[in-house]
């Protein structure tokens, strides 16, 4: 099957496109898709860094099964926020 994959932010720039059609075998999981995407776009992320995938607007797990027609997006790290030492019990930082 062929999956339509969207890229955002850092991944969009590194892939050089916003969407890509990625062929994977039937029954593929998020983990399988990530392997296929890395083969197509080896410069997307270093191999030792995990790539987060959203499936139908929810964060996917590596074992999440994919189907043709799923809305699939690769999600670079969001700003996260550094823990403030002064407010350790309720950490955060301004976006």
């Amino acid at each position, binding site marked *: 099957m062929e999956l339509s994959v*969207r890229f*955002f*932010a*850092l991944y*969009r*720039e*590194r892939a050089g496109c916003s969407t890509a059609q990625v062929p994977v075998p039937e029954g593929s999981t998020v983990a399988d898709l990530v392997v296929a995407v890395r083969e197509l776009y*080896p*410069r997307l*992320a*270093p*191999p*030792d*860094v995990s790539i987060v995938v*959203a499936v139908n*607007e*929810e*964060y996917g797990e590596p074992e999440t099964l994919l189907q043709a027609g799923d*809305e699939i*997006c690769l*999600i*670079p*790290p*969001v*700003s*996260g*926020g550094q823990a403030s030492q002064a407010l350790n019990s*309720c*950490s*955060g*930082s*301004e*976006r």
Partner: protein
Amino acid sequence: MSETIVITHHELNPEEFTDLVRRDTNGAVVTFLGTTRDTFEGRNVIRLEYEAYEEMAYRKLEEIRQELKSEFGVEDVAIGHRIGVVDIGEISLVVAVASPHRSEAFYACHEAVNRLKHSVPIWKKEFYEGGEHWVACEDHEFTGSVETPETLTVSADNA
């Protein structure tokens, strides 16, 4: 404006969000403003750019609002996030929370901002004199220690 969760290219007016959560049953309104800072790790930032996966960002912001309701009993929450180019000193985020008493409003507002930064797919890029940088993506830098020769020229992507 009547939508209580907004992702927009336009300037954010905090008062609009505050008005959305004010009610006679509430005795406290806490409003957080995230404003764009002019420095990052000692470098001068010229401007910022935000990018969102909007469909999912709306869904995640709504989830946060529901969590505040179920966990803290806070009913009135309004959130605005700006995307696109944002100049230094402008407002990129507004979180307004109202509740009958102040403790819940302070706490829920703080929690909303923290959760937002961890789960909502919105990215920030900082532009410097002669450079740019996606915030929080530092672990994605390619280094010589990684054995993928074809990736080693990737820094050109960021030029």
